[in-house]
């Protein structure tokens, strides 16, 4: 099929070269749209790059490291907590608790800051707990859905192999769904970056990229705001790619049946 036709055909699968050309074309198109945009308030790429250079000299690198480490720490804690809670739903006692936690994702972080402040012993702990909470409520929802969607025949298979119920949980839910943990993690690690800037705006004691972003936004320095957003996007893409790579390496079976690998 002609590539030009294929890109608009439903369920068409392109070869790697065609995908690369497609992505490169779209990136160039976005850049052209950005460069020649009629919106005067939208900073030009050269202005953004210039602002990025200035910010870097002012210590953006250190702020990024602070934020990156905080985010990684929060994601690690949230992942462990959420997985434990989601796996606990195999026991009826924990199902209502997890269902309630899942519903808390509708709450605003700003409204919860006061309670977390009372519990936290330092600014870092406050930021960490706010981030862990905001990521966990989404993570636990995703994982609980994954566990709930395991088909009955997989449980039957484990039971016919004389497994006790805890072994069934280990084989069918923990090991059997491990590739989906990476998918849920990918989504929630991205949510972590979204929440991070908000949390760093609420608790400014340690700085971080969120604090810098809010400061620049406050002074309406749009070039700098765009520069920070671009940096966060690149970091996020790196994080996303790393999680995807880890999934492919650790769960090679997960991509075998996919049409678009």
């Amino acid at each position, binding site marked *: 099929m002609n590539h030009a036709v294929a890109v608009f055909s439903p369920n068409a699968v392109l070869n790697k070269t065609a995908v690369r050309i497609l992505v490169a074309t779209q990136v160039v198109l976005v850049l052209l749209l950005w460069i020649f945009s009629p919106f005067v308030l939208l900073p030009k790429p050269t202005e953004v790059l210039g602002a990025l250079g200035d910010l870097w000299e002012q210590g953006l690198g250190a702020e990024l490291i602070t934020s990156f480490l905080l985010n990684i720490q929060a994601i690690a804690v949230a992942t462990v907590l959420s997985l434990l809670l989601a796996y606990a739903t195999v026991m009826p006692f924990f199902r209502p608790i997890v269902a309630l936690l899942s519903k808390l994702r509708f709450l605003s972080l700003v409204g919860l800051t006061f309670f977390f402040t009372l519990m936290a012993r330092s600014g870092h702990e406050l930021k960490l707990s706010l981030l862990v909470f905001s990521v966990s409520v989404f993570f636990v929802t995703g994982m609980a859905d994954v566990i709930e969607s395991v*088909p009955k*025949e*997989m449980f*039957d*298979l484990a*039971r*016919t*192999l*004389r*497994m006790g119920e805890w072994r069934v949980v280990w*084989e069918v839910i923990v*090991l*059997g769904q*491990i*590739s989906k943990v990476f998918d849920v993690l990918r989504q929630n690690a991205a949510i972590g970056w979204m929440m991070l800037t908000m949390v760093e705006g609420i608790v400014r004691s340690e700085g971080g990229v969120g604090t810098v972003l809010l400061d620049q936004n406050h002074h309406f320095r749009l070039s700098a705001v765009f520069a920070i957003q671009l940096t966060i996007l690149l970091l996020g893409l790196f994080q996303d790619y790393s999680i995807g790579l880890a999934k492919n390496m650790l*769960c*090679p*079976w997960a991509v*075998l*049946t996919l049409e678009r690998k």
Partner: protein
Amino acid sequence: MGHTTYSYGKTLLKIENVSLEYDGRPVLSGVSAEVKDILVPGRIQGQVVGILGPSGCGKTTLFRIIAGLMKPTSGLVTVNESGTPVRAGEVGVVAQTYPLFEHRTVLGNLMLAAGRKEKDSQVAKDKVMAYLREFGLEDKFNLYPAQLSGGQRQRCAILQQILCSEHFLLMDEPFSGLDLIMLEKTCELIAKVANMDELNTIIVVTHDVTAACSVADQLWLMGHGRGEDGETGPGSRIVKQHNLIDRDLCWEPGIITTAHFTDFVREVKEEFRSL
């Protein structure tokens, strides 16, 4: 056509008056049947039972009860003259979709099953490799289930259950969606597995009348049944049983091409319509 001399030995599986209600609605009503060891002088002869019935008649429910995966509302299923209700794991189950643990390789899946009975991992591995050779899968041991063809996956799922269960294998719709060649191969595979041990018993749940007749030595027809007033009963039961050995319809090569077989299939199909 030669009449094979056979006799019955001990009872291997007994279903006693099994009933099941779901949300107050009767699904199974007093299902009773038994499988006895078929003894044929001079050879190992396993047992193959075909359970036939229309869609939605409760075949899969009965299947799950026989496998010990579901408890009936009343009644009992026992295996090996134990007298105690069947427990999950005593009866192997091969579901229609041939489920396997996708995160394990073929060897991993089979070792998991073999390891339940054999604690020495080297002995278990030797046994698994011997079975893989026997079933033509020796070069697939390192593949994941997603990399197997439909036929290979079927054999792997069967092997997994054979390695773990006690001579019993339940197969849910094993002929569903197969072409003619695959169907013949599946029938051969069932016969091969059944005849690997004197006590091996395979119960095939299907609605493919011809395939069931070609592979089974006895048929159980399941349905609601009709009373004298012509009304159907409240739940399904085994309405009729056919002994295919007495009718010279099994263990003979090429039996399915005979007029005798065709007539029998026609007879069962007629009965099937009234189930």
